[in-house]
């Protein structure tokens, strides 16, 4: 029983970290319509920044600086946000698929830097000894897992509430307007450049924070953690949950992560050890099938923005205007 609770806490922690990344993507894609296919790069930037800031001094590479974990997380958000703002600024003139190709390139560059800039990132060996919050509790795994879960839950909840507030705010309305029709929004006095860069920066900062949380949760990072498969997973999470909805981003992440982890457990049960490396590919197949099913059955995801609006509109066609006041 204790084991089960411990595992549930471990599972939820991992799932909630994914939720945080998906929330960042939802701001960029769901709200603003920015096709960021390079999110793994921003997650990596957050993880490496926080690792460099908080690990003990290592003669083999730059740092670490042995700073408190909280400083590491804030540093991750700042560096991730700046990197994303820079990407947003550099890609102002690009739309949809061209933007996607460029952001994908950014992620590949980040991953290659992580792999090759050994004096900075430890190269293929990665960075170990990343301090873990509540590391003192590591002797009692259950307590350790539960306290990790509590902290990730608190961060995710804070991000969720802040993003929910923003998506209902006039600021969020401008982002939605840019998603719907940039030219119309510009004609109404909204600077497409300014808001695109902001959406990139805020989303990137959240993704970087998630990367930092994950790094401190596992205690070790390596370039392999930030391959394009991560981007794929998060996109599936957002599509399944429903693009444009923050609660959908969280629910989609938990659901997809459950299927990912579940199919992983299942393959290790069903296949002999020598076949398992190959069977692991079935995880991706499982996620792919799920994506297809969702797109067929609920094209806008579990909590998609659009059908909900339509239902709400049908239910209350003559609602008093005041009832929807701010």
């Amino acid at each position, binding site marked *: 029983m204790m084991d089960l609770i411990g595992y549930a806490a471990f599972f939820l922690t991992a799932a909630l970290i994914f939720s945080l990344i998906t929330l960042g993507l939802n701001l960029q894609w769901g709200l603003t319509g920015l096709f960021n296919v390079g999110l793994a790069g921003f997650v990596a930037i957050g993880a490496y920044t926080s690792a460099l800031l908080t690990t003990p001094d290592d003669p083999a590479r730059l740092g670490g600086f042995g700073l408190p974990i909280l400083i590491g997380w804030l540093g991750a958000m700042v560096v991730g946000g700046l990197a994303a703002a820079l990407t947003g600024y550099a890609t102002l003139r690009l739309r949809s698929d061209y933007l996607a190709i460029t952001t994908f390139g950014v992620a590949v560059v980040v991953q290659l830097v992580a792999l090759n800039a050994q004096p900075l990132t430890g190269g293929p060996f990665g960075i170990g000894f990343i301090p873990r919050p509540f590391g003192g509790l590591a002797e009692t795994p259950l307590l350790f897992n539960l306290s990790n879960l509590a902290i990730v839950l608190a961060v995710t909840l804070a991000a969720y509430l802040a993003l929910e507030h923003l998506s209902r705010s*006039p*600021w969020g*309305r401008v982002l939605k307007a840019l998603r719907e029709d940039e030219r119309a929004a*510009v004609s*109404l*006095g*909204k600077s497409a450049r300014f808001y695109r860069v902001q959406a990139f920066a805020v989303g990137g900062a959240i993704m970087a924070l998630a990367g930092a949380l994950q790094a401190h949760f596992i205690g070790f990072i390596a370039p392999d953690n930030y391959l394009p498969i991560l981007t794929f997973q998060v996109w599936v999470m957002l599509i399944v949950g429903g693009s444009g909805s923050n609660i959908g981003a969280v629910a989609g992440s938990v659901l997809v992560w459950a299927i990912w982890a579940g199919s992983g457990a299942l393959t290790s049960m069903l296949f002999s050890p020598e076949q398992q490396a190959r069977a692991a590919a079935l995880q991706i197949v499982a996620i792919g099938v799920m994506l297809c099913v969702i797109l067929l059955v609920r094209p806008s995801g579990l909590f998609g923005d659009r059908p909900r609006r*339509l239902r709400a509109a049908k239910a209350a066609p*003559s609602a008093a205007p005041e009832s929807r006041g701010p």
Partner: protein
Amino acid sequence: MNETARQHGAETHAAVLTATNVTRRFGGLVAVNNVSFEVRPGEILGLIGPNGAGKTTMFDLLAGSILPTSGEIRLNGTLVSGEAAHLRIGRGLGRTFQIPRPLPNLTLIENVMLAAQGQTGERLLANFITPWRVAGEEKAAAKKAVELLELVSLSRLAHQPARVLSGGQRKLLELARVMMADPAIILLDEPAAGVNATLLEVIIDRIRDINKSGITFLLIEHNIDMVTRLCHRVLVMASGELICEGTADEVARDPRVIEAYLGGTA
């Protein structure tokens, strides 16, 4: 020519909008060639001309969507021709589009509220630092948006997504939306195109009402009946040049205009 029009023709106010020697080239094509005119305060000025005359390019230049190759555009005396498009509405110039551009998945009221200028809540951090101020402004904006939707007879659809609207309703929504920004002048690109006769009357009435409240209009229109009924003065463009200026009756009799529309040898 009616009384109002004569009055506007006679008065010499400082212009709301002036174009001076405006030229726009696209490669070898001169879409707008050395055009100069002014829009006087309170008038409804029509801009007509055959297809390909450069009317929409002229509109895009005035609205800032494209920059002139040469020449100056002034809005209430301020030189704006080098400025980014999004700054123009804050200076009092609003526009609508030939093919309306509602934000389809935003509700009508959200569409209109978006056009409010100088909203505190459009600054990211203000939503956390001064939420009460944002809420107060939103409440005021929502009230005004509902009033504007009432003006264009769309208030019963206020909470529907804009995609449910018909073509004519979309034009009315754009009109309400641009009004939200309290513009001094509104550029209308073919307000009558694709609109059924009943709704057209509504649009004409609303433009007239709004004009009476002191807002200036510049409109592109092919519907000559509408131009004759609404416009105090008319400009005629052909092949990128301004060929004629006057009242609707005057330009209709002008041989240069007849030639531009019907072709022929001069």
